[in-house]
Structures are given as structure tokens and as C-alpha cells.
């Protein structure tokens, strides 16, 4: 039951991209098409699950003072494994488009954030589901952004054309388009939460994205 809860929270309630606002760099960079988003999401999910379980296993052995370097080493190991596996087994075109973003997963805030906020305090079993949920949530958010951007920018979804004579809205393919679409997504997310809070008779306070008020990690408390 608890494992299901840990998995489900990453999909909506604590979605890494739309609620926790983590991993903005790959979100903005790789969401230009649904296919790239799926590939990046799958690679990140693998790293998240692997590093979460490994970090959770060593959480009692690693002293507090060197935990961040240890986490980074573990995450880097998993990213290198992903890179080698993709070079060996992934379709070459995916390798070509995602090539430069894979090494950047090492510094993806979601991976380090979950390591610090969850895996270092919970059992490997729960950490696995936390990583899986966060990874799937990240993938879904990225794919939603990618599908909207790809459709507006090129008139296609998963490289399949929907309308033959679509006038491409080129801006959406570029970096500013990513900011626009993400902004609308976040606004929609807030709207839904405000409505839900109102239905429950509460007042909704939007989350403040200030590091001092965030309880996600304890990086600032050392």
C-alpha cells in the first residue's frame, strides 16, 4: 500500500516538473518533440531508480559529511551505464538526438533531490517506488510539453503529421517556446489546485519557490 502511495505521488501530487519545479534544464531543452521527451524520460527514470536504490542501500554506511560526493559518484556511475547501454542497444537516431543530454542527467536536480529528500531516509523498497514514480511523472510531464510544442511547432506528434497543411509556429521549437508552454502548464496546474482547494473550502496558497522555505532537501542546513 505504502509503495503504491510513493509511486503515485510522483505522477501528480508531487510531480517533479510541474509541482516541485525540479529538472528545469532538461525539461526546457529536450521537450522539443514527444519522442525526445520519451527517450530522455526513460533514461532519467532508469538513473533515478538505480541511484535511489543504491543510495538507500548505503545510507547507513555513508557518513553525513561525505554523503553528497558519494551520491554524485553513484549517480554518475548509473548515468555512465545508461550511456553505454544506449550506445549498444538504443536506436541510433535516438542516440544522436539525446547524446549530449544524457551526461547532463548527472546534475539533474531531480536525481540528487530525490536522493537527498527520500532515498537517504527510506528503505530501498520504498526508494525504488519513489524513483519509479518520480521518473514516470517526469516522463509524462516532459511528453505533455513535448507533444504540445511539437504539434504547434511542426504540426506533428511522435513525428506523425496530423494535418497536411499546418503552418508551423516555429517559435515553439525554440527555447522561448519551451518557456511559454511551461508557463501555461504551470498556470493550468495552479488553476486546478485553486479550484480543488475552493471545493474543499480551503484557501490555496501557491508554493513559494524560495530555497529557504523549501523542505525538499537539507542541503542548506549544514
Amino acid at each position, binding site marked *: 500500500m505504502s509503495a503504491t502511495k510513493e509511486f503515485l505521488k510522483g505522477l501528480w501530487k508531487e510531480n517533479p516538473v510541474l509541482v516541485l519545479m525540479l529538472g528545469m534544464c532538461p525539461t526546457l531543452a529536450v521537450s522539443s518533440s514527444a519522442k525526445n521527451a520519451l527517450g530522455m524520460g526513460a533514461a532519467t527514470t532508469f538513473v533515478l531508480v538505480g541511484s535511489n536504490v543504491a543510495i538507500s542501500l548505503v545510507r547507513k554506511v555513508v557518513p553525513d559529511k561525505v554523503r553528497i560526493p558519494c551520491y554524485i559518484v553513484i549517480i554518475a556511475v548509473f548515468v*555512465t551505464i545508461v550511456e553505454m547501454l544506449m550506445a549498444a542497444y538504443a536506436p541510433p537516431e535516438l542516440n544522436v538526438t539525446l547524446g549530449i543530454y544524457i551526461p547532463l542527467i548527472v546534475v539533474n536536480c531531480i536525481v540528487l533531490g530525490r536522493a537527498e529528500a527520500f532515498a537517504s531516509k527510506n528503505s530501498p523498497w520504498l526508494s525504488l517506488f519513489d524513483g519509479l514514480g518520480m521518473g514516470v511523472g517526469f516522463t509524462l510531464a516532459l511528453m505533455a510539453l513535448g507533444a504540445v510544442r511539437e504539434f504547434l511547432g511542426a504540426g506533428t506528434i511522435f513525428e506523425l*503529421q496530423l494535418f497536411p497543411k499546418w503552418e508551423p509556429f516555429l517559435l515553439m521549437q525554440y527555447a522561448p517556446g519551451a518557456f511559454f508552454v511551461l508557463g501555461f502548464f504551470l498556470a493550468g496546474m495552479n488553476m486546478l489546485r485553486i479550484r480543488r482547494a475552493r471545493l474543499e473550502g480551503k484557501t490555496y496558497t501557491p508554493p513559494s519557490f524560495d530555497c529557504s522555505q523549501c523542505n525538499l532537501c537539507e542541503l542548506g542546513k549544514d
Partner: protein
Amino acid sequence: MKDIIRLCLVLAAVCFCGAAALVYVNAKTLIPRQQAQQTALAESLFMVLPPETNAVNALELPLDKGLSFFLASDEEGRPLAVAGQGSTNTGFGGEVVVLVGLERDGRIRGVMVSKHSETPGLGTKATDRKQVKSLWKVLAGKEKDLDFPPNDYLDIYSGRQAGSFVLGGGSAEQRIDGISGATTSCQAVLAAVNRVCDAYNKNRDAIWAAQ
């Protein structure tokens, strides 16, 4: 002091375990990775060479680093066409490797970018050959896979005489128009194509004589 030694030991142990895991995965994926590279090269070669190609031989010529030529022959062993591979480091993301298919008379059959690290969505407009399929046609089963998907930039080279190309300038034979938003990538592709053409023109006789 004792504390520092303990911290160092833990960190070293973690690094050691990580390194061991990587050594294992590296050894396990070495052969599949090489195979994937070879398959990718074979597929790209097939795209720039004529469909009648029966065998492709890598040629051993005294060329600069990053340049190589492949000779395609038909079933009776007659040379059909040549594919030249050339690389440059001037891409936006570093290395760009192109494959240029060349006809007997020195005209370019087609250009393919076989390796690059250009920005997806921007630089890739000048490097990726992509077929736009219609969702409805795919659902109806009417869409066919193209052997050589189009690319607005790379297709400019097709049918041109191998020579020294200039981006957005030069004479009519030399002029190649770039793509906005991908200027650096266009220039890198152009530089690599020029290297191949230059090497081809210098070694033409040796290339066609090789069997």
C-alpha cells in the same frame, strides 16, 4: 584526524565499487556497441550508395585523419559509386561526420550526416534526414518508408559536381544556402563535405582504380 581517514575510506570505497560496476558494464557492452556502430555505418552507406550495390569495400588510401572512402561494386564486381566519409570539429556540439555518395562522373548522389552532437530542434535541421509521415496514412497502412528521407539543407548538395562549396556566396556552382537558426551546423556540414570533395578530386584515379 581519525574522522578524516574514515571519510576518505568511505568515499574511496564508494568510488571503487562504482568503478568496478563500470568496468563490468563496459566489458559486457563493448561488442554490442561496436556492432551498433558498424550497423549504423552500413545503414548510412546504403542510403548514399545506389540500390544495385552488392558489396562495399573500405579503401586504404594515404589520407588525412578523419577521411575515408568506400567503393561500392555491383554483382559482377564492377565499381558503381564511391562514398566518402569526412569529419570536422567545427560543429556547434563538436564533431560532425558526413557521408558523401559520389557518382562515376564526380556528381554528388547524396549527403548524410552520420555523427553529430548538434542541438536538437536547431542544429539538427541541417543534419537529420527525417521523413514526415501522416498519422492518418499510417493508421490506414498507406505510408511507405522512404529509402532516403528529405532534408532541406542536405538535399541542396544532391546532383552537384564535387567541388569547393561556399555557404551563401561564391559562384552559382559553389553557392549553398544555409538554414536560419542552424548556421554553425550548416557551416560544419559544408566544411566536412568540402574535405571529402577535395580528397576525392585529388585521389580520383586511385579511388576508382582500387578493387
